[in-house]
């Protein structure tokens, strides 16, 4: 960290290497597009490098980096007017078509992954960040508070609302993703 602060390129590269996947994943889950996610993740590390002198060593480095990433993504969403939850404006879900022959399970996993992301895209940005940090970064409530600047009750509330919203979206758009709903819709169909 000290070496990176002194402008040591290798030390900063090691820092980027350590956090590139959590940051890229957060950007991808927040923005919903691999291209935008890569640009955003790169910009996040530019900001990280610039703000190294202001880093408080008492703070967990992962929380600090992800805090910069989540704020950056929320700013991007605001700037690009992607803050829409209107289902009609969402791109229609299409099954992934692979040119390479893939095992059936892998293809199914990829399809489900794309559908999960399509649902995440429909959440309000302020609900997305805590959800992503909770599920993909395994961050406890307190660390999410630190990274998002939210109070503990706000984090709990946003996670809860995000789950309820996801349940509602799945009921309407992807009941087969939830086994209990899939069984219900099958029995109704029968």
């Amino acid at each position, binding site marked *: 960290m000290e070496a990176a602060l002194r*402008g040591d*390129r290798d030390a*900063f*590269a090691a820092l*980027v*290497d350590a956090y*590139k*996947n*959590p*940051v*890229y*994943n957060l950007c*991808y*889950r927040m923005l919903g597009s*691999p291209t935008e*996610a*890569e640009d955003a*993740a*790169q*910009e996040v*590390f*530019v*900001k*990280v*490098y*610039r*703000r190294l002198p*202001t880093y408080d060593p008492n703070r967990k480095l992962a929380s600090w980096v992800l805090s910069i990433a989540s704020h950056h993504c929320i700013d991007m969403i605001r700037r690009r007017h992607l803050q829409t939850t209107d289902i009609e404006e969402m791109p229609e879900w299409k099954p992934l078509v692979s040119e390479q022959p893939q095992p059936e399970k892998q293809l199914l996993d990829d399809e*489900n*992954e794309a559908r*999960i992301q399509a649902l995440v895209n429909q959440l309000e940005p302020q609900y997305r960040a805590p*959800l992503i940090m*909770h*599920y*993909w970064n395994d961050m406890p*409530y307190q660390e999410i508070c630190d990274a998002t600047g939210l109070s503990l009750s706000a984090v*709990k509330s946003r*996670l*809860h609302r995000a*789950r*309820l919203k*996801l*349940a509602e979206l*799945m*009921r309407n758009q992807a009941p087969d*993703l*939830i*086994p*209990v*709903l899939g069984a219900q819709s099958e029995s109704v169909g029968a």
Partner: protein
Amino acid sequence: MTMKATMCDDMPELISLYLDGEMDEVARSRVRRHTAHCALCGTLFQELQSIDTMFHNAPLQLAPVGFTERAVQAAFEASFRENLRVGMVTLIFGTVTLLGLLLWGNLGMVTTIATTLVSPDAFTGMDQWIPSFVESVRVFWRVMISAVVTVGEVLAAPLAVTLMAGAVSAYLLAEILKRTRVQMTA
């Protein structure tokens, strides 16, 4: 009846806390008991549990190959541009400050030099200067050098102080601008 309704009202939030492991065992068993007997809450519990499992199992998206090199390059280039901007601001501000202080403090000297150059004596024998170009250049340089020497002798100390003050204030201003910018974008 009222108690059950209240229990059902609170249940969605309690289920979330249950799934996140933010409950003691007594509260957990209460949630389990209620969801086992209440069809509505039971279904919600299963839905939220399925979502929880699905999201826990969703894979982490990995950064593309070569990302580290690109990100480091971008960070160092951005930092270089930032430093260049700060350097330019420092240079421009320092120069303007220096010139301003010099002119303000030494307006009399500038006036003297200008007056000397345009005084009737300076142009006496102008008709002789034209055929003798070397002589005219020599006169011009003599005036210039004497002016510089005078300025140097008279202003050596104030000049040094002004230069240092200009440079220090420019550096401080540039740092303040830089820090303000970082805080604004934070």
